[in-house]
């Protein structure tokens, strides 16, 4: 565990420009290539794992494994690599838990199908970005939406928002944090996967 910590530090407290560029290149790659796969990845995991409440932890672990591997060597195609990682993770979990999830094991064959799904056209995503954001915003719980709108669209300060809504700044902060989490889920992951399904 300790050597892990040390190697991380190299990436995040860079002392030379070249190391820093590597860190930022990795982040850029992760944001550009891996995060957009989250909806498909979530769908794949839901399909192959019985306990749905494990899904967010599984997604996170796939990401962590992808990140660890990519730090050593950047995979050529993110999509194939992410799904292979997810596949291996599920196998590890099945072994570790010693619960034979027949369903899971048999349906892991669907990997090939899931991994072959066409990647959505990036330019179409870019065009629709603002509309998607607006929809995601509309889906937030009312109070959270109100706070996020006041901060991010109207540009009010946290103090002003607290005053207008008669809540504390700590509560404003809580809404902003919850709002960001929900927007990220909507833009990248689980919510998008559920939407595609219906």
């Amino acid at each position, binding site marked *: 565990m300790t050597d892990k910590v040390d190697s991380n530090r190299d990436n995040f407290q860079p002392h030379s420009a070249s190391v820093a560029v590597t860190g930022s290149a990795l982040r850029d790659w992760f944001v550009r290539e891996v995060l957009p796969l989250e909806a498909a990845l979530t769908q794949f995991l839901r399909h192959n794992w019985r306990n749905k409440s494990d899904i967010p932890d599984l997604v996170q672990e796939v990401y962590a494994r992808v990140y660890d591997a990519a730090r050593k060597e950047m995979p050529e195609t993110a999509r194939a690599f992410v799904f292979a990682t997810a596949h291996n993770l599920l196998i590890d979990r099945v072994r570790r838990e010693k619960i034979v999830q027949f369903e899971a094991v048999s349906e892991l064959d669907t990997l090939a199908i899931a991994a072959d799904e066409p990647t959505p056209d990036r330019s179409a995503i870019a065009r629709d970005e603002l509309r998607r954001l607006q929809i995601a915003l509309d889906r937030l719980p009312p109070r959270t939406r109100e706070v996020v709108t006041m901060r991010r669209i109207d540009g009010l300060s946290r103090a002003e928002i607290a005053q207008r809504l008669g809540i504390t700044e700590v509560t404003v902060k809580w809404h902003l*944090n919850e709002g960001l989490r929900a927007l990220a889920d909507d833009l990248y992951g689980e919510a998008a996967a559920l939407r595609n399904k219906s």
Partner: protein
Amino acid sequence: MSAAEIQSRAADFVNQRRDSGQWSPDDQSALDAWLSESPEHVVAYWRLDAAWERTQRLAALRPSKPDRTGGAIWRNVLRFSAAALVIAAGTGAAFYFTRPSAPEARQFATEVGARKTIKLPDGSEIELNTNTVLRIAPGPNPRMAWLEKGEAYFRIQHDSAHPFVVMAQGRRVVDLGTEFLMRAEPKRLEVALVAGRAQLDSPNDPTQEPAVLTPGDVAIATANAINVTSKSAKALSDEISWRQGLLVFKYTTLEDAASEFNRYNRKKIIITDPNVASLTIVGTFPSNDVTAFTDAAQAIFGLKIENRHGEIAIKR
């Protein structure tokens, strides 16, 4: 920690760093320490930070504030210049085109960092970017403007009988049903066509061929040449993102990004180290938020930010 707990913590860091306006070296150390604890923390942070960047575009939903005084001014211009208009119309277009600028023209200007929308009586709209001076011909239905300096986005109601004409640096852009962007810098004029068609020519130099621009075309006119290149719709829309108060960088060098920020802000960013100047970034920033930019330079490249009197230095 569960994924949900990690995400809550990551969201807190992202919002605190990006959005609160309060980010101390202690906060940075706390973040660094937390990130170094596990890869799960890193990826959760990246994910929410990327989501935060994407939601920056929400600022584009901010309603733009058209220049309300514009309407009143136009009504006044209309009242006082009705007589002058008849004469101008009688002498024809050539009269206008050869004049460098009409003395009675209304002048509109923006300060550094400001934007302004001018609505013309015919429904055309002109959005002025930072540090810009535009003059518009007098009359109830002006179809001529002079971009004296800076940058403006023109959304022109087409009238084939009265093409809209913009003059800048001795060049002339004649709209043929158009949305276009013009940016006048010393010795350089850029015209980017977003929709419709326009012609760019040089009334004072008949030896230069006029250029007809179609959507995606970007014409760059220097002292004795006009070069036309083509850009994707996405690249063009990034270029006019200032209309939403945003700057979009795509593998832009820190040097170029800094000079873009410097157009919008009185507090100037200074980069002297060529190794720093040539680093490239990708991202979208509010044009008036220099701190968001310097924070990014600090967080991504581990650079030092020095706040001096009236300027900000970025160093290694």
